[in-house]
């Protein structure tokens, strides 16, 4: 290790040993050793990250006395999560086989958590809201609208009828990670209306056929 304390009074040959004056030099090596030891310890053990969180709202339990009709959903999609990180979806409302109006029965389509899977699907369906928010963002950047208006308009754009509404359903095998992945994807894709609900028995039947 490099020395800190130089030999006191060096270079005088065999001169008399003089009493040291002024700055007394202390060998700082042990102290420095200790300092670095502590430094290394704290650097390695400290964690700066406070946990990140995702805010989410859950619906209240439906009141049996409440008879208001559920709002009409124009642009809806239902994701069904199941074991082995598999995910299925169908668009629109669930139609049973032999529908009275002659509509084709609902089929589940499989997708995945990659960029080409769920992300692409959601961004396509929610295009109107994403475009609108992008425009708002530009206006906001040019300082045409204040941030409070920007926030309000963004919320409104997410809540419009054309904007995507997502239902998330899980069976008993789906993991929490998959659920967070879906919610995260929805947040990225500016989907403001999403809710987790229980699966209907008919959907479960359909899912069982696919597995």
């Amino acid at each position, binding site marked *: 290790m490099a020395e800190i304390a130089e030999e006191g009074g060096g270079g005088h040959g065999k001169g008399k040993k003089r009493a040291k004056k002024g700055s007394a030099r202390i060998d700082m090596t042990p102290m420095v050793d200790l300092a670095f030891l502590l*430094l290394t310890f704290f650097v390695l053990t400290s964690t700066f990250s406070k946990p990140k*969180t*995702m805010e989410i709202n859950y619906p209240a339990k439906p009141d049996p006395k409440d008879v208001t009709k559920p709002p009409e959903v124009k642009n809806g999609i239902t994701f069904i999560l199941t074991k082995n990180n598999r995910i299925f979806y169908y668009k629109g409302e669930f139609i049973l086989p032999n529908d009275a109006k002659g509509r084709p029965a609902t089929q589940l389509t499989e997708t995945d958590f990659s960029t080409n899977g769920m992300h692409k699907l959601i961004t396509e369906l929610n295009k109107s809201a994403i475009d609108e928010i992008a425009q708002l963002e530009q206006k906001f950047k040019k300082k045409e609208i204040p941030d409070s208006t920007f926030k309000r308009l963004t919320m409104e754009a997410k809540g419009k009828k054309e904007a995507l509404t997502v239902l998330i359903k899980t069976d008993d095998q789906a993991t*929490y990670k998959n659920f967070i992945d879906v919610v995260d994807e929805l947040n990225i894709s500016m989907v403001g209306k999403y809710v987790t609900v229980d699966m209907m028995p008919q959907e479960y039947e359909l899912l069982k056929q696919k597995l």
Partner: protein
Amino acid sequence: MHKGSPSLDMTPMVDLAFLLVTFFMLTASFREAEPVTIDPPASHSDKLLPENYIIVDVDALGRPFFGISNPEAREKTLDRMCQKYNVQLTDKQKKTFMGMSVFGVDVKDLPKYLSLQENERAKFKPQNGIPNDSLTPQLKEWILYAAQEANAVYLKAKEEAKSKGQEFKMEKPRYAIKSDQKTKYISVKKVIDTFTDIKIYRFNLITSLEGGSKKE
């Protein structure tokens, strides 16, 4: 010219080293030992966990654990639960409880659990999470009492700040759920249903930040 070992002036380096040591020592906060390790899933969310929270951890096996951040509310909640279940705690056990992060035992086992040394607590056997069924809805009671107490503490602090004309900084209590990647969603759902039963609908789900991610 010097030969052999050239002596270096290390003073600036030592200065810096001590500066860093001081900084890390002062900023470091030791993580409290948790009874279970939970590895939360990653997300793109960059919101931080609020200061004032009531938390339920759900581990990979689906066992619920419970914790409150505010010390005052924590103490009062403990008192109410002990009263309800007729559990007697010594002052020392109470103190241990105050220093813990989350716990997952039946309230009747609390005295035994709190008497253990810190490193023994993780091995405590009947640690099956807090009972949460219709017969012993302890988790629900913990949450309910904690929510009431935390809100009371919040309102009291608000009143106090108002009467003294000080700036009020405390955050409203929030409800956090921390769960492992591998946890079955259905066990998390059960905890969420417990919350919605007592009319709490808004949660902070704890995630870790996705490494080096950008908005796509």
